[in-house]
């Protein structure tokens, strides 16, 4: 399968293609192009570093949407053991856009929730590209309450473009389902660790996406509105998303600066898909240390701290 090339990577992809061509030529005709190959290799390496070491917000959005980026399922398969999936909302159906389950992760038995994007078209259709309907969010709430009832910490993986914007979702109370989850998460009497692994699209992300800790992957984003939708409102032109993605301050670093996220997990140069193994290990360490510090806390104190943490978010004035 050809490697998926993001828009901003094109100059690098072209140069890399040239290098492959040159190597093939050299091998076929024994032209002794060692010098040229070495130079081109250095150039490729240089470009790779300049291109990736300071990604713009819009470039990070592209990385967060890269089809090869590790997804909830990959984290579960790699870091989880003794997995038992919890299915259905007990009212309407089982929404595969959300994973809920009993999972042992970072050495602890947990309840795990995650938006579930597919790896291919078939999976994506079944999982609605990780965009939940109300029944998916209600399944998640069921799992939250189960975690609370049995004293299991809750770990969530955020990776969605948003709650599904459809007719049936409205009929079944999309807004209601999100709100119920927010209220439940805010007061849940067990530790809650949320990890932004890819896309964090507004209410559908938030519905399983906050708690005692918010850990963000370096290239994950979390936003009140998608940069495209924001651009089409403000400029009547979705192609101005690169500008709005900067204005919205939605990168991991922005979130830490705004006091919303606690920690950034670094990704390999070029994105998590380049070296997933390193990212899995780093995410496991981050979850593990968050749970270590949270699981020892007295539960009343834990919930009070979470309430204060959420309540403190916001910038306003009380002066004239």
């Amino acid at each position: 399968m050809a490697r998926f090339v993001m828009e901003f990577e094109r100059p690098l992809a072209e140069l890399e293609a040239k290098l492959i061509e040159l190597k093939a030529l050299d091998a076929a005709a024994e032209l002794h192009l060692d010098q040229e190959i070495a130079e081109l290799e250095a150039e490729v390496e240089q470009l790779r570093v300049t291109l990736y070491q300071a990604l713009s917000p819009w470039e990070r959005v592209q990385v967060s949407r890269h089809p090869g980026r590790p997804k909830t399922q990959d984290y579960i398969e790699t870091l989880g053991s003794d997995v038992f999936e919890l299915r259905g909302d007990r009212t309407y159906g089982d929404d595969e856009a959300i994973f809920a389950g009993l999972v042992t992760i970072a050495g602890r038995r947990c309840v795990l929730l995650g938006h579930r994007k597919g790896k291919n078209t078939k999976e994506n259709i079944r999982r609605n590209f990780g965009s939940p309907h109300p029944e998916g969010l209600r399944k998640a709430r069921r799992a939250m309450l189960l975690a609370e009832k049995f004293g299991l910490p809750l770990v969530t993986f955020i990776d969605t473009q948003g709650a599904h914007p459809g007719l049936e979702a409205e009929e079944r109370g999309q807004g209601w389902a999100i709100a119920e989850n927010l209220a439940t998460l805010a007061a849940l009497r067990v530790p809650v660790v949320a990890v932004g692994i890819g896309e964090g699209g507004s209410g559908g992300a938030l519905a399983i996406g906050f708690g005692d800790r918010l850990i963000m992957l370096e290239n994950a984003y979390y936003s009140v509105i998608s940069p495209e939708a924001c651009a089409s409102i403000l400029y009547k032109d979705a192609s101005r998303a690169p500008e709005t993605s900067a204005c919205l301050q939605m990168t991991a670093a922005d979130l830490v600066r705004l006091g919303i996220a606690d920690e950034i997990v670094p990704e390999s140069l070029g994105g998590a898909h380049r070296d997933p193994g390193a990212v899995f290990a780093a995410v496991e360490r981050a979850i593990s240390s968050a749970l270590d510090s949270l699981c020892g806390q007295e539960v009343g104190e834990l919930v009070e701290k979470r309430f204060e943490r959420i309540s403190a978010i916001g910038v306003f004035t009380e002066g004239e």
Partner: protein
Amino acid sequence: MPISDWFKAREGRRYTVASTDKAADLPDGVWLKCPSCKHTLYQGALNDNLSVCPHCGHHFDMPAYDRVLALADEGTFDETEALVSSLDPLRFSAAKPYATSLASAKEKTGLAEAMITGRALLGGHPVVLGAMDFRFIGASMGSAVGEKIARAFALAQAEDRALVLAIASGGARMQEGMLSLMQMAKTAAAAERLSRAGVPYLSILTNPTYGGVTASFPVLADVILAEPGALIGFTGPRVIEQTIRQSLPKGFQTAEFLVEHGMIDGVVPRSELRDTVGRILDYLCAQDVPEAAVGAVCAVPTEDGEA
């Protein structure tokens, strides 16, 4: 996304009904046409009728102060947190600078923010009463609105007053980015606390209520009412139409549609709201809530292990 649709939808509406939808902004002595029945109305008469068309019952947008005065027992509304207002923490400047939008909203409405709150009596019951004002940047929820709401919940709990909120909003205030999205969690957390304290909370959804606001504190109320014909939802109709590539059924996302789908308790005309809310509070405020019932919905064991 929800908010996007809002602004688009509003623009469309302005285009088709000209200035008639902006009744709230016009001074007495101006004539306007009802967008629903096309009757020509005198602004003064409309104001005397709670901004409801006397011919067809069309509910016009209602400014926040008119709203609290219409709900509170006469002369009892006492505003709180009047100085809380927005800053521009992101220095958001895409298209139109947020600072400019804030300044013009303040000038246009005379309000410090898109929401007012205060103590009042309603049907004789001590309440905390709040109302959102759509003229102020679509009554979108940023940090200041979120803070005022959180404080209203806290005040209701501290003084054991029922909370009554009249809602209207295009959604989260995107010019405050993630700070505005997090107000959904903040206000939901506040609502959950009040609920566990057993203090009654009623919300009145008015036209329009959308996006991140729908998906937070308003729908967590003990009893949810809505005004006739009000449009209420998470995702706006235009975005849904783009997604499903067909037009939506008539009456979709109206208050009446939400009753049918089990999402709200009732549709109540503006003229009957004060009475209806008062009668519900007669039930919910009368009893001392037994300790054991508080929080029982969630079946949360306390540390002692009791339910």
